């Protein structure tokens, strides 16, 4: 506790004149069509984009096109990959399907929180990640996205924009670092 008091007293001792925090002027949110911008952002971030027609069911699409994909709609898979799982078991995950909650047109980021999958490591440890997002959950920028998150209930959440990547060797972009090597977004 000593360091705490020392640091706080040091700061208070400086006695800086207080500067008022200004209210943020948000860009006006009109009910525009952000879909084209979102798709461009996703592609820039290295994601694959699939636009489903209104009558198409995302789960069926995943079952058909990405056989063996694990989704967390059933209690069994929730149990198997949640409390009953080990890291070595999770490490074998090849393909995972998760529902995204909010999507940002400006940068392709999709919000997921651990209320929608049973173990926080799942979206990272899997080789392929498939995210579903509804056009109704599309917002223009991070400003609107952050106002939509329910912080009172949240313990862990992440914006994901594309598959994991690095350019640490000579600035050459390599898709697939520690997280998934591919991200597919179903809209």
């Amino acid at each position, binding site marked *: 506790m000593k360091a705490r008091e020392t640091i706080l007293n040091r700061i208070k001792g400086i006695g800086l004149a207080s500067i008022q925090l200004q209210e943020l002027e948000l860009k006006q949110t009109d009910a525009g069509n952000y879909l084209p911008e979102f798709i461009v952002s996703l592609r820039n971030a290295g994601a694959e984009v699939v636009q489903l027609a209104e009558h198409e069911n995302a789960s069926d699409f995943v079952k058909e096109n990405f056989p063996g994909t694990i989704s967390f709609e059933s209690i069994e898979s929730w149990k198997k990959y949640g409390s009953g799982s080990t890291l070595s078991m999770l490490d074998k995950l090849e393909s995972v399907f998760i529902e995204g909650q909010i999507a940002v047109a400006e*940068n392709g980021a999709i919000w997921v929180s651990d209320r929608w999958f049973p173990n*926080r490591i799942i979206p990272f440890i899997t080789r392929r990640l498939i995210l579903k997002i509804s056009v109704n959950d599309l917002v223009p920028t991070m400003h609107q996205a952050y106002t939509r998150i329910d912080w009172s209930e949240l313990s*862990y959440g*992440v914006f994901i924009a594309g598959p994991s990547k690095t350019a640490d060797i000579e600035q050459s972009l390599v898709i*697939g670092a520690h997280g998934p090597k591919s991200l597919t977004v179903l809209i």
Partner: protein
Amino acid sequence: MINHAKAAKAFLRNEKRTDWHDQALWFVRQKRDRAVNQLPEWEQLRETASQIKGATLSKLAHHLLEFERQALQNGVYVHWANDAEDFNRCVLKIIRKHNATKVVKSKSMLTEECHLNPFLECEGIEVVDTDLGERIIQFRNEPPSHIVLPAIHLKKEEIGELFHVKLGTEAGASDPTYLTHAACAHLREKFLQAEVAITGVNFAVAETGAVVVCTNEGNADMGVNAAKVQIHCMGIEKVIPRTADLAVFTRMLARSATGQAVTTYTSHYLKPVPGKEMHVIIVDNGRTDILKKPQFLNSLKCIRCGACMNTCPVYRRSGGHSYGSTIPGPIGSILAPGSDLKQYRDLPFASSLCGSCSNVCPVKINIHEQLYSWRQEVSSARLLRTGKSITMSVMAKILSNSSHYQAVGLIARRLLARLPRKMIYNSFNVWGLGRELPEPPASSFNQWYRQNRKNTKL
């Protein structure tokens, strides 16, 4: 004491390599420009970001306490550390509490600053840096040369050789994709074995107690979510008041750093998983000393994007290691003298004062003005290099008296025109070592004016 010019000279010996380094960073600067120009409100965002940081710093204790209160409510352990030693011991104590010996770490300039790795290694703990660039330099046992691109000073062939020795990749292989995947396979084993995960902190939100970490590789989340214990290390300046402020900074950070619209992962840690532990360590280590100095406190607004390095003509041509400080480049050159003026007296001079750093800074730190102010601090502390201080006092005598000035001007014009080159360009003429002196004019401006404006009274 750091001798920047000498270290830069060594870096410049390989001209081809210097050009490559220069171009690689300029490429990042250009990507940044394209990303920034996509947002018409960019300048408004910079102004807002700077305002938020300024207001936060002015009531720092209040915001830190609010953050602590929220974090405690979330079931997080909050620790405070005065200095590097305090901080290192705090980390060790948490590790010891869990009898852990295997630690993974994602990027954190603060742990570099406090030399956490060597400290823990001495205590028999294995610390593995998991950011690819950080792992490369950890293998090489050297510090990062850039805060966002830690291994930007290395060629892929060198990394290939290194990985051949350390990871058993094929001899002579230098394909970045092959090398990256080999390193990731090696690091995945480390993730799965690690008992404790350490991360830096990009933003700590007072309103919710959220710790926000941004990565492209996903290494922070792999580490934190695999380990039993997570430790997040933050300087006192990392706190921001509101969730809404996050939107401003997450829109700017990656655009400024690498020219991406946002980092691949922007992770928000609020509460630990039941049965696991989450710790946050709040560190001063000299930051309150900077906060005391009105002309320098804006440097605490820094969000560590590295844009000032990528644009700096001196950094690009001298390399990060030439600065000899944890954080190199323009921002490092205004932070380091605050921690040890004597040790880093050279750094404020490692700049042409062109101002490009200030222009690209997303939080509008007046970097080049602070560099200039630090030069004055170095001078008034009598820490200028001998050659420079003698030259300065001689020049002050000449420039403060018009008859001295005119006399010296006359001598200089005559001598420069007549003396052999060897007499002018020698080790005493430091300016002339890398530069040509101007052609001496036939007459001074004063003489010219008298001749050409005979009717005007001077």
